[in-house]
């Protein structure tokens, strides 16, 4: 995946989690809604975080050419 | 109703037949939904096999038409499972459970391999025989209490015979492939991962649901 796609995915999942936590703290949404949002967004956050700090920006990685 | 899966979230009534969802059955329903979506969206994997005792390996060949049929069966299986998760009527539940059995046979029986077909045939016989305790259990409950509605039975006042609950559970165990027919590894080794997973998923889910029903009524 492209770096920009991954950055957007990471930002989206982080925003969902932050929004859910914030709205819950402000008592605007019930607990189960916040939990559902976090259960959906947390796996995406984990995967995108890993892909993001590994994702090459522009330059291609050196391919493996065998021992 | 006793507190088994939490309080009701949603009840859908068709006269005296109804569907109800507790946090427990909603969780199961969502799980069936997610894996049905995965079966619709994902392409089957290209399975590699090894020849034991050497370095050789070969790729299994699968045809598009076979996979198309199995995907259809997997989706039908997902729908039947979702129906069984929310059903508040014992007869509907037994129908959905037997439909899960039929579609499970369909998923594996389309594989063009001698071993898988043999296993599927034997499993099909088990699934057919299991419909006897399955519907027998529901019939016993109807005969002793006069109703098949789970909320009505749970409200109390009925002595549901233990043997009927045991029959129902036994029937579901026989319909589902994973819990007690799982040693037939041929079926789970068949190519087409998203579809094979529906077999084990649906049988676990109907088993989880019948446990809830047996405790509730």
């Amino acid at each position: 995946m492209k770096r920009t796609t991954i950055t957007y995915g990471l930002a989206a999942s982080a925003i969902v989690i932050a929004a859910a936590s914030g709205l819950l703290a402000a008592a605007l949404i019930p607990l189960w809604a916040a939990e559902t949002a976090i259960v959906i967004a947390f796996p995406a956050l984990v995967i995108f975080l890993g892909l993001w700090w590994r994702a090459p920006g522009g330059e291609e990685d050196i391919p493996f050419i065998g021992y | 109703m006793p507190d088994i899966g939490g309080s009701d979230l949603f009840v859908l009534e068709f006269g005296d037949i109804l569907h109800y969802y507790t946090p427990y059955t909603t969780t199961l329903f969502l799980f069936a939904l997610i894996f049905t979506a995965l079966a619709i969206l994902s392409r089957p994997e290209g399975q590699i096999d090894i020849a034991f005792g050497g370095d050789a390996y070969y790729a299994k060949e699968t045809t598009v038409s076979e996979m198309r049929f199995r995907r259809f069966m997997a989706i039908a299986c997902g729908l039947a499972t979702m129906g069984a998760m929310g059903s508040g009527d014992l007869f509907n539940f037994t129908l959905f459970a037997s439909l899960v059995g039929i579609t499970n046979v369909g998923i594996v029986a389309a594989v063009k391999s001698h071993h898988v077909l043999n296993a599927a045939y034997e499993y099909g016989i088990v699934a057919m025989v299991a419909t006897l305790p399955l519907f027998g259990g529901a019939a016993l409950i109807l005969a002793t209490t006069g109703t098949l509605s789970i909320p009505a039975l749970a409200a109390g006042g009925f002595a549901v015979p233990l043997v009927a609950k045991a029959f129902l559970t036994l029937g579901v165990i026989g319909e589902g492939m994973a819990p007690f027919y799982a040693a037939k590894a041929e079926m789970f080794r068949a190519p087409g991962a998203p579809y094979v997973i529906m077999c084990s998923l649906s049988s676990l889910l109907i088993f989880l649901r019948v446990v809830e029903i047996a405790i509730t009524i």
Partner: protein
Amino acid sequence: MIEYLVFAAVFGLLLLGLHRKVIARVQMRPGPPVWQEILHALKFSFKSTWVPKTASATLYVGVVLVGIGIWSAALFVVLAGESILILFAIYMLHKVVEHGFGLSSGSPYGKFGGVRSVISAASEIPLFVTIAAIYLFTESLLLSDITAYQAVHGPFLLIAPPVAIAMYLVILSKLPYGPFSIVESKELVSGYKTEHFGVWRAGISVIDGLKTFVLLFAFVALFIGAVPFWAALVLMTIVLVSLSFVCAVSPMLSPFDSVTIQGLITGVMLAYAGYLWWVMP
């Protein structure tokens, strides 16, 4: 919310590291550092990642997300004191996730790991006996009601010890180096985990951390009752260390022996639940 998840994942991984350390010390080896599993998770997340050519791509990636999702949900269920049936449904469905990991790649090693995970379904049945036995006492399956019952009548560990032993064996069969860990045994490379590398493997580490934390936390809540959070962490560590001793001195069983022993345990537990049902008023 999110802080609970991060804490549970990190603490669970730390417990797994401690597990390896204790096993090593019992076997008179130095063993890896306690934080090794956390380092593993970080290391894998920095590795280059792609999807194998033979894999069913959507399923291959999807099961990682589903796996993290269900154990996050399980953590919330336990913390909120909801029905333990949901927790145990998630435990059983973890089997489907393992199966998905194994089959989705098309690799023979992963496939056999997945097949083994399906044939070891016998390990799940003691769970239902546990549930049924607890229900006979409490008439409710909400975790909050169960802890309230224990506050009045004392911990279940003393009321019904065989039930606690059954749950202990269930946790044992999910640990990576136990006698029942046939799904990731070394003759299958890493079993169902074999083909998930890089970020996907880091995701599996998060799943393992959450799973260990949730199962041990549920064990403490179910059999010891409501205790302060720090005390729960201490008790979880004690339970895990005792499990490590079991893992250190027992060999890994062959698949069919493992299933046979789990089946025998199930039979004993069914007899115990029947006995309870008979003597209860």
